[in-house]
């Protein structure tokens, strides 16, 4: 009824195979491409684990911010429309807006590159 390994486990195995077996065996652009694909496999594995919950949380945040019950795609378009107007059309509370954007970025980064969050910030001298 249920096949194993599941998708995240397979993607991790694909990433490890590329990184450990394929990358050392090539050089130049093919090596770079193999490294990129290995990294994409790891991103997809994390997306399988956390993607749905992250999307639901962003949808919920945007519904509160924009006062709308629409789906995520429509909410993002609506947010973009309000931002394009420079804050003149249906202005939003700036602190709330920043919090929603920041939380969304943190959740996406936890999928795309978790180590980036722990690293040193961009202005540290």
């Amino acid at each position: 009824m249920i096949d194993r390994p599941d998708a995240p486990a397979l993607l991790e195995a694909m990433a490890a195979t590329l990184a450990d077996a394929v990358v050392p065996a090539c050089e130049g652009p093919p090596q770079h491409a193999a490294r990129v694909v290995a990294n994409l496999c790891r991103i997809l594995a994390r997306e399988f684990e956390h993607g749905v919950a992250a999307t639901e949380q962003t949808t919920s945040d945007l519904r509160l911010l924009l006062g709308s019950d629409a789906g995520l795609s429509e909410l993002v378009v609506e947010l973009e429309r309000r931002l394009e107007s420079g804050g003149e059309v249906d202005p939003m509370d700036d602190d709330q807006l920043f919090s929603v954007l920041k939380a969304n970025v943190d959740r996406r980064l936890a999928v795309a590159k978790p180590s980036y969050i722990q690293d040193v910030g961009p202005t540290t001298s």
Partner: protein
Amino acid sequence: MSSGPKPEVVAAGLAEVLAAAGLHSPLVTIDGVASAGATRKTLFLTVQVGGDSGGETIAAVAQISSNNVLLGASMSVEDEAKLVDLAELAGVPVAAVLGASNDNESVGGPVVITRRIDGPTIPRHVLRLLEATPGLGDTLIGQCGAALAQLHRSGVDGVPESLPQLDADRPAAAYADQLGRTLDGIVDPHPVLRYGIRWLGQNLPSAPPSPAIVHGDFRNGNLIVNDTGLGAVLDWELAHVGDPMEDLAYLCLRTWRFGNDHLPAGGFGTIEALREAYVTAGGLWRDDAFHWWMTARTNWWGIGLAFQARNFTEGATASIVHAASGRRVVELEYDLLSLIESGA
């Protein structure tokens, strides 16, 4: 790998370009392809001046553009060559231009031919060299600060006509407008980048006392580094007239540190060392503009990565690297919000 003109045809075309630039009977041999990027291909050449009669032998590099697709490159390569000459006169280490042509059919695209200077340009190779050579990072950051001060102090008299110019009175505002228009070109919404542009428009920095030549892409990856430090500043195709602080800020973007976050200036120096070198060489450092331009150019590269991803999703490229760029946009968005938070 794209098919293009045959190597012997390209070599003959390169010889024509060099002859037109005043070299006597040049014979060109292509020694190899150094890199074949999305917009530029780099060839290593040996040029025998005086043909078979045996004049000077020159190690050279040809950079052939396929197209200028990304974000505003609009200067002709002939004008780019003139600009590099101006930079050299100002004291910036450059790879001296031997010839340039916008329209030599045999070469297959606009080309700039320069002298070859030894040393790595690939960022991780540069960082490895710096790690292996005590004190070289300090030397390099000092040379970068000095080179930028020399470039920025040289004034804008005699710059090529096609060199893009940001509005002299309000370069930052003009740049923020430009970012907004560029983002309009991507159909998918990117609210974080849009928010960044709004913040930029609402938090404009002081204007520079006078406009300057800005390199526009001054970072690890576009610098030749050898055991004496800065060998040459390359890749002038994003140069423009604008706010000199843009170059200093750009060098310090997190994305160009290649993981060396403990050294925020380029991944090889401190901001204090960069500032000191710049000011010592006669440059005027403005803190508000430094922070603003870091924010603006972080936003710009976020848009750049989003563009690469768009080119993949719309079928303009099958590059897996460009596809993966779509998942890197969030890194720049994270940096963007961190910068806004620290500057609010």
